[in-house]
């Protein structure tokens, strides 16, 4: 931490600030920069790519990173186009920037984007911009079960992220479990990298797929992708259990085994079907959740009737003037959908953002017609997937009273049940105040679905003031605008 960066927060000027350098943010930045918009791209990671195109650290000298990836050609094209724009000064990529707040009406500028610097996050800097694109992606949903806090129990995509970024494995003998399309590439990736995947446990009933066969048939690309992963699982002789769930993880200092059980058609554990599988790692996930915090604090409308997401119009505009959103922040749908949404946002931004030197080209929907077709096709597909891959309806019954539900504050399920059954809490806010569930470091990001399921109340809006924990020194120093 240098003195200059702490006393005078740096200021960078942009037409457009793109937050998130995953598929959505990159597509938007490129489309906008192609049309003369000066873009500053901020991302928490050391390299661009986001979750899907997460790159091995440069120092690891990976000559064949594509071995861990799908659709590498798309990534190479994106990467090369970004490099061209960066060289020409049209895109500035600020890596290692954790955006904690987007401030409207920042002095003479429409927005001030405040970001904590580097992994230690002690200093903040500000990018000023006329428009902002939120392309912050999402994170995994993991529902609680007894033993889920044991070391060696990791989020499925987290294991994938550590593998892609650090070329490391959490253990040798892995069970991959939960529900959702993400489990497939994770199991295939871990197996290819040398882990023994001793079970792939998916809670969804195969019938759920049959019902959506027509939707699948309309997406040959997706079927090919899934078939590719399935072939890999077959090649590595991974035992697949469908309509099963991991109901407990066992161990003292680390997971040593899991109990797997069959589910009935209603999603309840079929008594007597429990059996133990020895493992040193459980990679588990139950779907994905959108990062909505920056949008929430900007006042953008969030749809929280189910899992929350940022609401956007046909041009990927939020209902706050000057703020666009694209990719998984606007709903979970995978990398190809994120690319299409980013592209549409880029066109809209180039047309609508009338900065000092921007002429303001017409917004012509014909420009993004192809991307819009991809978008509507894939949104349809994701909706079908989300229905097919819903977690088992009665998962909360497996959560024993002594199971920690809020990992940060160590709140057990019993305390949450007392709050609702005996203390009369009927909403998550009250449960939180009574138990401290969701009040720790992660601000409820991890436990919200778990607490909500165990309490039997809808999740509701999260209302986090900042997207990251901010050191007090930074708050004290933050300028009021230039």
């Amino acid at each position: 931490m240098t003195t200059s960066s702490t006393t005078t927060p740096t200021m960078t000027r942009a037409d457009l600030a793109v937050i998130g350098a995953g598929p959505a943010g990159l597509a938007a930045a490129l489309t906008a920069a192609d049309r003369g918009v000066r873009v500053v791209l901020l991302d928490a990671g050391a390299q661009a790519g986001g979750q899907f195109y997460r790159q091995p650290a440069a120092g690891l000298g990976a000559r064949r990173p594509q071995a861990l990836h799908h659709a590498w050609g798309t990534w190479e094209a994106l990467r090369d186009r970004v490099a061209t724009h960066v060289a020409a000064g049209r895109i500035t990529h600020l890596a290692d920037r954790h955006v904690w707040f987007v401030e409207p009406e920042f002095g003479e500028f429409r927005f001030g984007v405040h970001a904590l610097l580097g992994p230690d996050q002690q200093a903040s800097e500000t990018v000023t911009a006329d428009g902002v694109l939120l392309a912050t992606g999402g994170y995994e949903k993991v529902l609680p079960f007894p033993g889920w806090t044991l070391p060696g129990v990791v989020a499925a995509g987290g294991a994938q992220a550590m593998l892609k970024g650090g070329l490391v494995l959490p253990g040798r003998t892995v069970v991959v479990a939960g529900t959702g399309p993400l489990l497939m590439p994770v199991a295939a990736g871990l197996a290819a990298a040398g882990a023994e995947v001793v079970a792939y446990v998916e809670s969804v009933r195969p019938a759920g797929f049959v019902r959506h066969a027509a939707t699948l048939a309309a997406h040959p690309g997706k079927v090919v992708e899934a078939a590719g992963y399935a072939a890999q699982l077959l090649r590595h002789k991974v035992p697949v259990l469908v309509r099963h769930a991991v109901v407990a993880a066992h161990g003292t200092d680390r997971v040593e085994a899991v109990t797997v059980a069959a589910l009935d058609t209603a999603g309840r554990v079929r008594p007597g079907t429990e059996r133990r599988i020895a493992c040193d790692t459980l990679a588990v996930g139950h779907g994905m959740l959108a990062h909505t915090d920056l949008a929430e604090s900007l006042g953008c409308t969030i749809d929280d009737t189910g899992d929350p997401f940022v609401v956007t119009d046909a041009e990927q505009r939020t209902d706050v003037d000057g703020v666009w959103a694209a990719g998984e922040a606007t709903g979970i749908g995978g990398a190809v959908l994120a690319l299409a949404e980013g592209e549409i946002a880029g066109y809209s931004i180039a047309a609508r953002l009338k900065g000092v030197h921007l002429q303001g080209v017409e917004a012509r929907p014909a420009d993004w017609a192809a991307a819009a077709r991809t978008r509507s096709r894939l949104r349809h597909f994701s909706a079908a997937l989300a229905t097919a891959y819903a977690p088992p309806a009665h998962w909360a019954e497996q959560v024993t009273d002594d199971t920690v539900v809020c990992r940060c504050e160590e709140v057990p399920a019993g305390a949450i049940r007392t709050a609702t059954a005996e203390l009369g809490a009927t909403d998550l806010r009250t449960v939180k105040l009574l138990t401290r569930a969701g009040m720790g470091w992660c601000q409820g990001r991890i436990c919200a679905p778990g607490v909500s399921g165990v309490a039997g109340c809808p999740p509701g809006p999260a209302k986090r003031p900042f997207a990251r924990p901010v050191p007090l020194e930074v708050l004290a120093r933050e300028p009021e605008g230039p």
Partner: protein
Amino acid sequence: MRSRGVGGGPGGATPQELARAHPEPAFTVTVDGREIDALPGQTVAAVLWTAGITSWRGTRGSGAPRGVFCGIGVCFDCLITVNDRPNQRACLVPAHPGDTIRAQEGTGHDDLVHDDADHD
């Protein structure tokens, strides 16, 4: 640090072999008094996993062991003390030559006065 874990896989393949990695020269970091190898660019969590270490924090309440959970900086389960600075997310912070890395108990502030050997 408590539990041991991994090196390569049973099939002989390792992630590095799969990606044909030719890393820059390794350096060492000290983990609770013990020297371990680290590769340039790896996060502290990746370095610990390579050394077979999967837990490095005791929770504030029950002292339960924790390590990486989300792997992407969201959950704060992987908090660790690096060069006397507690509450660093091991899954985000890159390791640097000579780093002194220590398991973290509770809020991470109590154990700063202790000696490294306490944590073995």
